[in-house]
């Protein structure tokens, strides 16, 4: 499976301009699973993901992968809420992560074609990525993230602005990736999506970790009142 897991987080904290965005948090993510990060808007989900991915500086505490930091950086991928497209063709977007690791052009192109077929974008391989629809862009971003076969994949509310059909396509790809061994950590506030995909839930509220339970436990029998209210659909701060 993965040599990066388990991931141990101890007293980790991220601050910006004196304000605490997330933390201190303590938890351990095991080798297997599909982790959902849930919470209302502004609770710190994005900050948590970026913290785990290592792109923001820790104000305090540690985030420790099982392997060394250098290899850890190379084996992760991140899909942003608003997909970032390179100003290139669809094919070049897909091959970019491979090319920066010096994968020969022919092999990279073959992989790109394979993935394009999987996500249904074969027709537009040579067209500029800018002309794709929102759903297509996000599928492309996901394929671009998975093309390198990362061990860990982070996603920050990938389906937030997508329609039902695009959402379903993304979810199918995610489940396939998870089955293929990719450890997925995804933020979402779509309850249905969380139930469909998640094996465990990290519930974040006001920058603190309120609950960390297996999915069935969280949805059927949440431990905290805040979680209960959230699941109920109430507005909580």
């Amino acid at each position: 499976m993965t040599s990066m897991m388990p991931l141990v987080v101890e007293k980790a904290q991220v601050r910006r301009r004196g304000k605490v965005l997330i933390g201190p948090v303590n938890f351990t993510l095991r080798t297997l699973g599909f982790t959902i990060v849930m919470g209302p808007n502004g609770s710190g989900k994005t900050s948590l993901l970026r913290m785990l991915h290592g792109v923001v500086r820790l104000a305090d505490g540690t985030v420790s992968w099982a392997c060394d930091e250098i290899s850890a950086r190379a084996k992760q991928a991140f899909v942003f809420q608003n997909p970032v497209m390179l100003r290139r063709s669809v094919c070049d977007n897909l091959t970019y992560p491979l090319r920066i690791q010096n994968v020969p052009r022919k092999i990279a192109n073959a992989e790109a074609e394979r993935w394009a077929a999987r996500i249904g974008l074969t027709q537009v391989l040579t067209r500029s990525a800018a002309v794709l629809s929102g759903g297509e862009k996000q599928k492309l971003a996901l394929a671009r993230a998975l093309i390198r076969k990362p061990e860990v994949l982070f996603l920050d509310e990938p389906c937030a602005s997508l329609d039902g059909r695009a959402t379903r396509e993304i979810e199918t790809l995610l489940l396939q990736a998870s089955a293929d061994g990719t450890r997925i950590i995804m933020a979402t506030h779509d309850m249905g999506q969380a139930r469909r995909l998640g094996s465990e839930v990290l519930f974040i509220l006001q920058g603190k970790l309120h609950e960390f339970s297996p999915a069935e436990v969280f949805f059927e029998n949440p431990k905290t009142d805040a979680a209960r209210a959230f699941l109920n659909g109430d507005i909580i701060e």
Partner: protein
Amino acid sequence: MSDILDGVMQGIWLLVTLDPELIEITLRSLRITVSALLIASAIALPLGALLAVKRFRFRRVVIAVMNALMGLPPVVVGLCVYIILSRSGPLGVLGLLFTPSAMVIAQVIIIVPLVASIAHQSLRDLWSEYHDLLISMNTSQWQRISTLLWDGRRALLTASLAGFGRAIGEVGAIMVVGGNIDHVTRVLTTAIALETGKGDFGLALGLGFVLIFMALSVNLAIHYLTRTEVEGRW
């Protein structure tokens, strides 16, 4: 007003008859400016990209100085280069003074800040777009710079063309370091200065219109060759 009309007529006449002296100085103008532009771009474009992505202590100062240097008076640059290249100066042994090479050097110094500033600003905008993605993908500094340079190439072309415009019309520096020697370092702008000094406004304007016409042609050719403004491309 009749002077301007006379100038246009002279300019057209010079072009139509393909006056050999005109061709000689026009080609020399082009060669010197294109050389300067290539060298300056090789320095300024990566510099602009580096300043966009790398964070270091004095970055703001460096960017401010670079922007300010765009306003360097060319004749001052010319004087400094002259003093350095003069036989009595530190690099006199190279014997570069009053040759086209000296003119290229002076023009490079003049246009690097301009090209770098424009390149830096547009690459900075592009970097803010790509920042999260490229950091996430664990790219090296060099990979970030080359990705920005490639994806931002249209804006960089504009930066280079701005440098071309500045250089092709420059006269103060190249007059001092080139000496405006007939058949050696005389170019369009210095010839215009010379004819103006002789009071021959008609010919001076004529040469001026040739210069404008040439600059226009170069720009149109570049745009055509790189296929900008084609349907569906931004």
